[in-house]
């Protein structure tokens, strides 16, 4: 038996344990899927954190470029210079495109364990379907266990969020977006232009 198969058997025994705790099969499915979602969420926190900390400087550079161009466009609108606004906005969009796609690849890090969980679910509950009380045209009145997992995963991610900072307390959790340095240029929004004037030193 190769190492991958051994790992799979161990994982299967561990994961199915949670599904078998209650006697009621439906309750068992919900409990097991909740446990699976929790494990997937926690592993995802660590993989995302590791990926984000490894690419911090590159992302900061792209973000700086995006914010700088965007702020310039906001300043142009503030002085009613439509032509400059359009140009700066175009440049900001180009910069944002690069920033967004740089994160797209890294976004996968947070969800890395999800397809493996889905693969296990599909293998284990391949022939199971759940009936729903209404009918969707062409789709019918059944949903797959995958839908239950995805709903549960979203729920667990939201509910378990406060735990994230505690688990990753050794270092400040690296979020791909939340991170900001003290001397970093702040992205101007509509409200920044209301009442307060754009910072001329912003760019």
């Amino acid at each position, binding site marked *: 038996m190769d190492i991958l198969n051994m790992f799979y058997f161990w994982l299967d025994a561990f994961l199915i344990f949670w599904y078998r705790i209650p006697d009621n099969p439906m309750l068992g499915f919900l409990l097991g899927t909740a446990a699976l979602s929790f494990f997937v969420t926690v592993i995802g926190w660590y993989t995302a954190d590791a990926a984000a900390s490894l690419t911090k400087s590159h992302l900061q550079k792209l973000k700086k470029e995006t914010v700088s161009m965007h702020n310039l466009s906001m300043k142009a609108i503030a002085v009613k210079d439509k032509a400059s606004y359009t140009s700066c*906005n*175009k440049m900001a969009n180009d910069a944002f495109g690069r920033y967004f796609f740089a994160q797209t690849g890294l976004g996968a890090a947070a969800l*890395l364990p999800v397809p493996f969980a889905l*693969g296990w679910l599909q293998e284990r509950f391949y022939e199971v379907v759940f009936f729903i009380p209404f009918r969707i045209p062409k789709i019918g009145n059944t949903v797959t266990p995958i839908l239950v997992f995805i709903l549960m995963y979203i729920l667990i991610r939201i509910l378990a969020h406060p735990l994230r900072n505690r688990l990753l307390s050794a270092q400040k959790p690296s979020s791909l977006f939340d991170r900001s340095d003290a001397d970093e240029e702040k992205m101007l929004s509509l409200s920044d232009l209301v009442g307060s004037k754009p910072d001329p030193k912003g760019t």
Partner: protein
Amino acid sequence: MTQSTKSFIVLGILAALLLTPFILPQTAYADKLTDAIAKTPVGTGKGQIDPKAAPGYLGIPGGPNVNHIVAFLWAVWVGWIFSTVGAFGGIMAGVGHISIYGLGSYAGSFRETSPVLNKVVTDSVRVSNQFLVGMSALISSINYYKMGRLVVPLGIALAIGSMGGSYLVPLLTAGKVSFKAYQGYFGLFVLLLGCWMLYETTPTGAAKKKAAKAAADAFEKVMKEKKAGANVDTRDLGVKIVEFSVSRVRFTFYGVEFNFNPLFPVLGGFVIAAVASFIGVGGGFLLVPFLTSVSGLPMYLSAGTSAFAVLIGMITSIFSYIQQGTIVHWSLIGLEMAGIVVGSIVGPYTSKYLPDKALKVLFIILAFVVGINYVTKSFFGFAILGR
């Protein structure tokens, strides 16, 4: 995400899950794949299935066993593109599924003998592509919402169109598109993208970009000299709707007038999501420029809004495919996602050694080779590179 939105989502999901004890799990006695395998001639020849053969892709006896190392390395390349170039990542993920892993020729072998199996494998590739791109874009999109940059009416208009396109395409085409046709349209899309990239490098195409950069630089200089923002006219602050009708929205943004047709975002959302769903790509790279040019909104609003529309479209499309029984090779997707993460981390460290222009030329060549190869193979019956 605001506290009330969060509570709404939590309560909604809890309600849905609490209802599940009232329903009972059932066993489905047949599924698309089993049916398709049953309809395929038994044997060891081309286009036949030998039930005694070891299970391969999707558990099909005798199906190709995708080499894990190759799949991982190809995904590293996809991740590298995401982090250095952007838009081409989804396309390259598709090329991997079709050509590198050999799924294209495998599906094609059933063209005559088992059209149903041919289409089941085609759908699996389409949804795998979209899943790979969608899952990766999900987190970055959600984080963008947290920044509160969403124009709600515009987002809803886009989302309506986007959901329509993403729901209708799988509904109308799942199980009906042969691999040959899919590969042809995929190639056509890549070819068009290649033409666009080539146009952007021509003096005419580059002129607009150059002009925008020059105008932005000039304005930046003026702002530095004049101490920007000193003369903001406080009478015209924020967005003010001047005119609102079915065909025209006119608004002033800090006193500067803009207008757009509200039907455009619905239509644009629909078309872009339909194309994205059919080909199996994200569509985000099409939506952001579309939205900016249609509405003239600042980047920080249009980007968040389009991210929202992409997300809604993607989720609708993936669910639509899965609910219709499309089988996905999840472990392969997981492996590919791991590769994408590695590629995205490596990208920034290596891209500084490659000039932007060289990268652009590389991708134009790739787009033309892949595009022409797929189009000629599907529509004219011959391929330059064989697969």
